[in-house]
C-alpha cells in the first residue's frame, strides 16, 4: 500500500502507478455527477462549462445551502457507483476524467474504460459525509441545477480529500470483483453449515 496525494489535472503517469487497495487523497477540483448527469453528458450532447480533462468526478448527491450568493457544502458523500456502470466508460472517453470516486465496485465495462483511458475508480467511505464536507474548501460553480440538488453538477475545490481506496486500476484489476469471488466461496461454506441447524420444517 502506498499513500499519496493526487492533484488535478491528473496525468496518465499519476494514475498508472496506482494499484487496487492503495489509499490516495485528492487536491484540486472535484465535480459531482451521478445518474442523470452521466446520462445527459453521454446522450444529449450538452456540455458543462467545467472542463473535466484530467479531472476527478464524484458519484455524489450533496446537501448544499445558499448563503448570500455563494453555495455552501453541508454534507457530501458517495453514492452507489454501479448505477453509473451503463455510461461510465463513454463518460470517461468523452470527458478525459482520470479518477472516478464513488461507493462500492463497478463492472466489466468500466474496467475496460479504465484500461483504455488510463483512469481509475476509487471508493470513499460511504456515509462519512461530514468528514467529506469538511475537506471541501469551497463550491466554485454549480451547473445543471435543473436536475435538482442531488443530481446537479457541483464544482468544488478540495484539500486532502479522502481516504480514497483504489478499487479499479489502469491494469484492469477490480478489488470488489476479486473480493466477491472470495465472499461467494465462504458464503457457500457458511450456508452449508448453517442449513443443518435450520431444519425447522416438519415431515
Amino acid at each position, binding site marked *: 500500500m502506498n499513500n499519496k496525494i493526487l492533484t488535478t489535472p491528473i496525468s496518465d503517469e499519476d494514475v498508472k502507478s496506482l494499484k487496487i487497495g492503495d489509499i490516495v487523497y485528492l487536491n484540486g477540483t472535484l465535480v459531482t455527477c451521478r445518474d442523470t448527469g452521466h446520462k445527459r453528458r453521454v446522450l444529449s450532447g450538452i456540455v458543462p462549462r467545467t472542463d473535466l480533462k484530467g479531472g476527478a468526478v464524484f458519484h455524489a448527491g450533496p*446537501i448544499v445551502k445558499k448563503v448570500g450568493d455563494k453555495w455552501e457544502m453541508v454534507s457530501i458523500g458517495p*453514492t452507489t457507483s454501479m448505477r453509473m456502470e451503463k455510461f461510465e466508460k463513454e463518460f470517461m472517453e468523452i470527458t478525459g476524467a482520470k479518477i472516478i470516486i464513488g461507493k462500492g465496485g463497478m463492472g466489466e465495462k468500466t474496467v475496460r474504460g479504465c484500461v483504455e483511458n488510463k483512469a481509475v475508480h476509487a471508493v470513499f*467511505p460511504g456515509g*462519512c459525509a461530514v*468528514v467529506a464536507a469538511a475537506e471541501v474548501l469551497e463550491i466554485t460553480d454549480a451547473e445543471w441545477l435543473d436536475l435538482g440538488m442531488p443530481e446537479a453538477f457541483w464544482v468544488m475545490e478540495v484539500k486532502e480529500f479522502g481516504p480514497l481506496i483504489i478499487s479499479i486500476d489502469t491494469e484492469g484489476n477490480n478489488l470488489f470483483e476479486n473480493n466477491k469471488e472470495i465472499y461467494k466461496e465462504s458464503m457457500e461454506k457458511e450456508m452449508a453449515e448453517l442449513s443443518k441447524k435450520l431444519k425447522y420444517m416438519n415431515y
Partner: protein
Amino acid sequence: MNTTEKFLDTTVKFINLVAKVLPDDVVERLKELRENETVAMSKAIYDSMFENLDKAVSLDRPICQDTGVIQFYVRVGTKFPLIDEIGDLLYKATLEATETVPLRHNAVETFVEKNTGTNTGKKVPYIDYEIVPNSSNLEMDVYMAGGGCSLPGRSTVMMPSAGYEGIAAFVADTMVNWGINACPPLVIGVGIGTCVASAAKLAKKASLRRVGSRNPEPKAAEMEEALEKALGNIGIGAQGLPGKSGVMCVNIENMARHPSALGAAVSFGCWAHRRGTISFDKNMDYTLLDHKGVTL
C-alpha cells in the same frame, strides 16, 4: 403553544436529531465491531465513521448526505387527541425539517420523473399506521431510508420445501451480491410471511427493531443468532471491503403462513442507521426511547 403546535415542533426537532445522532443501540454495536476489527482497511473506515459521528454533532450536520425518504411507523392510540391530524402534521413536519435540518430533496415523482424539490410527494413522507386500542398515546419510529440501503431489499415467495435454510440462502445471496454496496456493517431485517407484501412489511419492521433484541419465539431467535454468525463469517467488513464482520444484527419478524407458500423478504439498514423512537402522551409531552439523556 397548543397541542398541535407542540406535536409539530417536537416532531421537527426529533427528525433533526435522527439525522444527526444515531440511536444508542446502534452506536454501542458499532463500537463493539470497531474494537473487534482486525483488518487494516476496515479499521480505517471505522475511524472515518466515528470521526464523522463526532463531526455531525460538533458541526451540527446530518451524518450522511443521503437523509433518505422520511418514513414514519406510527402506533397510534384510538384515543390520541390528534389522531385525525397525524398525516397532515407529519407531512408538515417533513417540509419544515427539510428546510431547517437541512435534509436532501429526495422525492422524485414517479412517471412525471421529476424531483419535487420539497422532499415530499405522493405518499412521501411514507406513513405506516398501526392502531392501538384504548390508548391515548402515540409511539412512532422515524426512519431515514437512504437509497443505498433501500436498493438491495428483496421479497419473494418460495415453495415451503425450500425451508428455513432456503430463506437463509436467499438472505445471504442478497447480502453478498447487493448488500455489500449498502455501507456495511448492515442491519439485516428478515420477514417470514405468507405473500410478497406481508414478508416485505415484516422485514422492514424487523430492520427497525433494536440491535441486540431477539424474537420472542425461541427457534426464530436461534435462527437470528445463527444467521448473524454465519453472515458475519463471510469476511465482508466495513463498506464491503474485507473485514471481520459486516453484520450489525439479524432481526427476524414472522407470522403464520399459507400451507403452500413461504414468503421471505430482506430489508437492509446501513451503518448510518438513522432510526429513532419517540412517544407522545395526550398532552404531547414526549419521551425518547432510543436516545437516552437527550432533550429536544
